[in-house]
């Protein structure tokens, strides 16, 4: 009854170009929200280990809040709430894509902050002391001694986060972004071929994420040589 090979030969020339086009959006969301998450993550992590209690507390709160919320809730809040809070402003630039990048970036920042912090704290305090004793300021010690080493330590978890993020972009469907999952849904139900379409989508996700996981592994290996 379900002859998948036949269904694919008949339809793939229509489905594939469309799904590949949507998967570009998926990749774009993943890429930009990853960059944003790294920037937020470093900033929040540095606040988290600050000597000032107020800054530290703020960082902890933001981390705990973000960790305690489902990504979908963060996406909804980031996308729908600002225009409601400030209705006087011009929100025409604030499309679903921007909302998706911002939402995933903020959420990811809080997740990565903890990863970065544990990376920084995994270093023996002697590293910082040695840098300071050579006349580095705490900021220079952080930039030239601590962060380069912490980067190596956090690379595997950050890579895993990136892979997870690529897949979590599918949640952006829910705020209406036309990424691959959204595209797949409309094709699947307009052509009455959910199985064939979703299997194809699964394959595309895998093709996108598998090279990433190979890349992470390769970077880990290269970093280990220079350790």
């Amino acid at each position, binding site marked *: 009854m379900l002859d998948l090979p036949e269904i694919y030969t008949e339809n793939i020339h229509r489905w594939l170009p469309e799904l590949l086009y949507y998967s570009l959006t998926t990749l774009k969301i993943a890429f930009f929200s990853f960059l944003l998450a790294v920037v937020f993550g470093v900033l929040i992590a540095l606040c988290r280990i600050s000597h000032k209690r107020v800054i530290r507390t703020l960082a902890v709160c933001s981390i705990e809040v973000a960790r305690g919320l489902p990504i979908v809730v963060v996406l909804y809040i980031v996308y729908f709430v600002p225009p409601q809070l400030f209705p006087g402003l011009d929100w025409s630039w604030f499309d679903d894509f921007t909302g998706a990048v911002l939402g995933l970036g903020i959420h990811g920042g809080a997740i990565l902050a903890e990863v970065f912090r544990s990376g920084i704290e995994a270093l023996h305090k*002697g*590293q910082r002391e*040695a840098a*300071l*004793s*050579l*006349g580095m*300021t705490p900021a220079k010690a952080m930039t030239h001694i601590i962060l380069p080493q912490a980067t190596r330590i956090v690379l595997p978890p950050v890579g895993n986060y990136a892979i997870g993020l690529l897949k979590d972009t599918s949640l952006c469907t829910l705020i209406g972004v036309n990424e691959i999952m959204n595209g797949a849904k409309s094709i699947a139900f307009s052509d009455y071929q959910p199985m064939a379409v979703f299997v194809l989508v699964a394959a595309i996700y895998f093709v996108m994420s598998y090279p990433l996981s190979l890349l992470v592994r390769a970077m880990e290996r290269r970093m280990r040589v220079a*350790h």
Partner: protein
Amino acid sequence: MSKAGSGAAAGQPLLKIQDLHKRFGLLEVLQGVDLDVARGEKVSIIGPSGSGKTTLLRCINYLEKPSAGHIYIDGTLIGEKKVGDRYVHLTDRELARERQEIGFVFQRFNLFPHLTALGNVTVAPIRVLGLSREVAELRGREMLQKVGLGHKADEYPERLSGGQQQRVAIARVLAMQPKLMLFDEATSALDPELIGEVLRVMRQLADEGATMVIVTHEIQFAGDVSDRVIFMDQGRIVEQGPPRDVLGRPSEARTREFLKHIQDR
């Protein structure tokens, strides 16, 4: 009693410590230490563990903030400045500037594992002194040669033995051309057969006229290399003087007891 101030450079001591106190919670680790070290002088500090000798050393370059008392190097206050008649802590930047003059060799080497031996030796001259890479590497190779590791410039620390790592750490300090070098049990983390190579380098520095304060358990080395030996116990200097006196015929019972204990080991 001491040879402080009798060295080549008369006048003020290079290092002057005044009534230094350090408390960790209720525990007073340093209970008022006064110490002058002349330019070119080599001072060894011995004493049982917990006597405060490492804390004293760490206070000198402000890795530990003293609870009270003052430290001067070349007449300059370390870690604080006088505003009116109040003492104020220095900013990070000011403190960093002062630390450039004070080399510190750690018990556990603390080499930077992500940098080669040469990278370890050049990172501070480049990032702190602002030397060009070429000049810093020239100086760095020279310092590595000096500690007998010119051929290991491109090795990462994990490929080096403990003794070699400590010698790189010494070269890293030398590259900053400090006025004063502090050694915190520099050989305590080494296997016995590797201690000699580090002590040889330290002896060479001493012969070249470096000013050194050495916290050590190597009593014989302390005796050979120092102008003055200080015995500390319970946060105080108990006894000090030329090695032949302090180590040979100590006047304090506690010193005799400690030396006997060390020899029995």
